[in-house]
Structure formats: C-alpha cells, structure tokens
C-alpha cells in the first residue's frame, strides 16, 4: 500500500484457522527448528485463508507460535506483501521504480486510475480490484512491468491492461 499504517492492524472477524489450514501449519512447523522460525510461512497461510491479515489473525498466529503479538506486528509491518487490510479479488501491483517509470509506468497507472475510478491503496466498489504500487519486481528488462496477483504481465500497456481487466472475474 502506498502509506502503510504504523501501529494499528484493523480489527477483523475472530480468527480461527480452518482445519486444513491448521494441518498446513503443523506441517510447516515440523520443518523448522523453532516455532518463531516458521512465522513467515504461517503468516502466508493466514493471508491465503482470509485474503488479508487482521489484528485477530496476527494474534492467533502469535498464540500458535508462542510469540508476543508485538513481534508478529513488527514482522507484518516490515514486509510489504502481507495485506494489512482487506483487498479486492485481484491485486493490481504496478511497478513504479526507475526502469518502469522511464518506460511509462506513470501513464499506465493514470490510465488504470481513471478506468477503475480508484486511487492507489483503494478497492473498487464491486470488490474486484485493489490497486497498489510496488518497488522493482525484477521485470526491468520488459518494463513497464506489473503483477496481477501472482502473475507477471509485461511489458504492459493501456490497451493490454484494459483487455485483462475485462477478462478477469
């Protein structure tokens, strides 16, 4: 997100991992020497379970891993790829670092803003898209580069983006 909040993870629903996620966590724990070491992958399980990580989810992870909730908050706010608030079904991640910027990332971003009527960090009213800005995603050779969810789309241009936005559910 463009401006990450410092202290507060917003409240969500009470977080209890569903059985299959719990089983995944157990498998992850068996591969690490300490519970603390499994924090990052367990947070991924949380994000995959709920789409974002709420205060309650962070506290539940802290409880399972026997860490202080503050420690989990610290890790969550350090890494940028954990979503600290609900996001749309698709996360549009625009690289605006130097190579992409020179190759027209600014115009692309502006185009998307206008088309979806939202700004960076916001989600469309129908819950389909959230727009965020990211630092270099190592696609400089095919700039401007962007990621939609876990997939690279590059080089990107406004008409390709329009087509993609149409096709995504």
């Amino acid at each position, binding site marked *: 997100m463009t401006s990450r909040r410092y202290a507060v993870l917003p409240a969500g629903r009470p977080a209890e991992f569903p059985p299959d996620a719990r089983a995944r966590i157990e498998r992850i724990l068996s591969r690490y020497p300490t519970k603390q070491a499994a924090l990052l992958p367990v947070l991924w399980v949380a994000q995959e379970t709920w789409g974002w990580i709420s205060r309650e989810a962070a*506290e539940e992870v802290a409880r399972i891993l026997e*860490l202080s909730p*503050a*420690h989990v908050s*610290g890790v969550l706010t350090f890494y940028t790829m954990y979503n600290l608030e609900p996001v749309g079904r698709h996360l549009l991640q625009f690289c605006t670092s130097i190579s992409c910027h020179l190759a027209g990332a600014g115009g692309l971003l502006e185009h998307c803003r206008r088309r979806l009527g939202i700004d960076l960090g916001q989600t469309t009213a129908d819950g389909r898209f959230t727009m965020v800005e990211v630092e270099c995603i190592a696609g400089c050779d095919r700039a401007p580069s962007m990621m939609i969810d876990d997939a690279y789309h590059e080089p990107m241009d406004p008409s390709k983006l329009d087509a993609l936005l149409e096709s995504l559910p």
Partner: protein
Amino acid sequence: MSAPAPPAPAAPPPPKKDTLTIVFDGKPIEVPPGINLIEAAKLAGIEIPHFCFHPRLSVVGQCRMCLVEIEGIPKIQAACTTPIKDGLAVKTTTQKVRESRAANMEFLLINHPLDCPICDQAGECKLQDNAFGYGEQRSRYDERKRQYAGYDRTAIGPHVVADMTRCIQCTRCIRFCQEIAGTGELTFLDRGGRTLVWTHDGKPLANDWSACAADVCPVGALTTKEFRFRRRVWDLKKTPSVCPGCNIGCNISIEDRDSVVYRFLPRLNPAVNDYWLCDYGRFLSESLNAREISKATVREGSDVRDAIVPAAVERIASEIRSTIETDGPSAIFFLGSAHLSNEENFLLRKIADHIGCGNRDVVVDRSRVRRMKSKTEWIEGDHAGANYAGARDMGLSPGPGGHGLTDVLEGRWIPQIVVVADASFAAAADDAEKVGRLRGARFLAVAARTANSLTRAADVVLPAASLAQKEGSFTNVQGRVQWFQRAFLPPPPARAHWELLLLLGVALGWGDRNWTPAAVRTQIREEVEGYDEVTEQELAGGGLMKKGLFVSTGAV
C-alpha cells in the same frame, strides 16, 4: 636397523590462566573471560562509545557506534559483538576509528531533531554525549528531517511517554521488555526510514517495570510521564538509598534539588535489583515530599497545642515514668515499624528493655507479590515495608509474657501507654476501629510525617523525617543489610525518627544524645545475632548478607 627414537618428553602444558590479556592502544590488561570488548575496555579505563549495547541485554550490534580496529583484521569491527580472546590487540584512537565514529554520528543525527534544549533527556543522553565526544561539528544534511505525527510525545503506557522523532532504533527498550520483563510489549513497526518503536495494536506498555524501558533508552525517545520536564537532570543531586516499597529493598538513587525529591532511579546492585526498579517503587518518590506534620503537638484536655520537640518528648517520658510508678512497665506498649531503619527499631527495643517492658511489636501489611530480577535470579517480596526482617531482627516481637499488637487490636489487652514509632506503620493506622483500640490507652504518642486517623487521635505527635531526610539501614528479604544515606535535612523542627527515639531514651535515662546511626550500628553489631560482620565499608559497598554470608557485589 636403528631403534625408534624414544618419544620426546611431553612439554609441560602452559600454566592455565583464568584471565585473558587484551592490549588496548598498546597497553596490556588482564580481563576475565566471557565479556566483550566494550566491557573489557571499560576495565582498562577506556571508553568505547556505544548505544545499543547494555550489559544485561542480548548483543545485537545494531547501532554501529562501537567501531574499533583490531590488529590482524583488515576491516573495522563492532566492539560489542567481538568476543574477546587472549592477546587481542585493539586500537580505539586511530584516525580510521575516529572517522568511522564521526561518520556514524552523522548518520544517526540525520533524522534527529537536535533540539536538546527542549528535550528532557539532555544531560543524560548518550546521543548528546557521543555527538559531543565523537561527532563532527556540522552535518552535511540540509533536507527536511523525518517526523512522526501521532507518534511523538504520546503516552505509550501508564508511565512512559514515547517520542519517535528522537528514537535511534537501538532496540534496547524492545529487548528489555522481551528479555528482562518477559512481556514483549514493544516492537519495531514498519521499516527503513519510517521504522518506529510501538506496541501491538496500540496496547499500553504496562508491565511492572515499564519505566525501565525509559531508563535503558539512551535518548529522549522514551521518558517517564512523572519526571518529564520537571527538572533538568544536571540540577539534581543523587543520594544512594533503598526503595521503601517492599522487602526486596531495591537500591535507588534519590534525586533531589532544594530538598524536593524529583525521582528515584535504580542504583546498580547485581545481587538485588541489578539495573532495574519496579514502577510501584519508583513512583513512590513523590510521596517523600508530603509534609503534613511539621510541628510537635501536645493534647491538653480538648486542646491541641504546638510544642517544641524536647518538651513534647519530655511529656512522653513523664507519662511513662508515672505509669511505671503506678502500674509498672508492663502497662506500656511500644510499636516499631517495617518502614523504620534497623537503628530506629533497635533504639525503640532498647528503650523498652531499659524500662523492663516486654510489650513490643512490629507489623506490616502484605502487599501483592512484587518481583525483581537480580543479575542471576528473580527475587520476590510481599511485605509493604522495606524493613520487616530487620525490625524483627532488632527484637521487636513481644518478649516473654509480653503482649503484641493483635492483643491490643482484638481487645484482649488495653495498655496504659502506647508509643508508636511510625504513625503510618500499616493500613491499620488509618482504620477508625483499630485506632480506637489503640486509643483505648490513657496516653498515645506517635512520630509522624503525614496525618492519618492515628495522628489525629494521639496525645503527642512528633514531627518525623522522610526516608530522604535520614540515614540508616534496612535488612531485605534475602537478609541483606543495606545502607541508605541522607539526601537532605528534614525541615526543622522535624527530626529523624532515630533522633526522636534517642531523645526519648535520654529523657528516660538511657543512651547518649550524641549517638549517630553509625554509633547505633556499632551496638547492633555487638548485640544482634548475625549483624556482627556487617561493617561500615560493606554497607557502603552495596549491602551484605547478615550472618557473615558474603556475597559479591562486583559492579559490571
């Protein structure tokens, strides 16, 4: 065929040293193993500037201030993370070291407000000291400094105020909460230039020792609400004392100016409180400034009149003398206090002995269990007075056939005279029913600093000193006898409890007006079992276990 050469006799193993030799700037020094270069340098009298290193917290190498050159290692090294080994040659004054320190200071100051004149840490700030000692005069940074709107000058808990614009990200506070308090409230949030120390979800930093986070903070990023902006620290005078809060007896410095106590700070004693102090004890400091009883008073019928102290003492003595004549000494009751020193409780017991009275006692309220981490272990205390153990040692329990406080409070015995050495000995002293029982005596005398039901009921009230206004010793829950010194004199005519008791003793024909607490301690050594080894030097050096049990108090 030649016979195989006989095996060469094994060289004798070199004598085993239990110290290591480190050469600092060409000067060798012997140091014990297991310490790091910063501590070793300190033993050599050399200061290696640092921020993040703290002797009781894990070593993280976070601040990069402690850079030194080590012979044989091409790159400059962080002294805190370098374990020592025999023969290490360290240079702390070379150009390379000086330049590295200056560069580090320049980085640290890029985002620092540098408004020391309005920062409460000034005068005890490592950043200020190290900038002055090792930094450059000017910074090349002209741009805007980072600000933390919403995270500056904000209470982060009941006692600690956080100002993240001043934080240098040393993590000492985080490590304190995690490693010493064990509560882990603090963490770094966010990253890079926006990193800040805060709690999870804005929860309060509210462990029992939270103000220690402000103590370990080398800068003004964490300060205490209670002390903030009340005094510049260089105006304050430090006096070694002992916390009055509970029977752990943490070592403190009383900091005062013009006879006003501004704060308690922990005073290092690895065997008791190490570098720490609990919030409850620390913030008792303000209570030392209360003064409600500033004159001696004597009740005449329904009138309460002011009196001079010697006259009020003489009044108590004459009541005691006449009661001895009419009813004998066993109609008198002496109550000591866990808030009073060994010397004072000893004097009270000696007065009782002198007139042949076995009715004496000391009681103390139970408090919630307080815990304090010494260098090696957790200590627990649950008495609301610092010197219950000492008062009992001084003989303040009922003698053979004598009565104690519960006999009086439960109405089994009504003495003629009650002498209470400390009017706030326990909660009972402000309980109308219990005071009514004590008031059942024909004559009731107390020494006091603050007013309560007991002082209002008493016939004679003597104005007494606070902890800061007198000298003495307490014996803590470990049996450690610890000395507290006087920070300033009580406002006349108030006097230390021991002086008042000595006046009473002299008026009754025992003791010497010129005795000091030290003179009383000489008698304690002679008369009280287990106190014979507690010398004055040892008291001054951080306290000693009575019963001749020596415990190292070596400072780190």
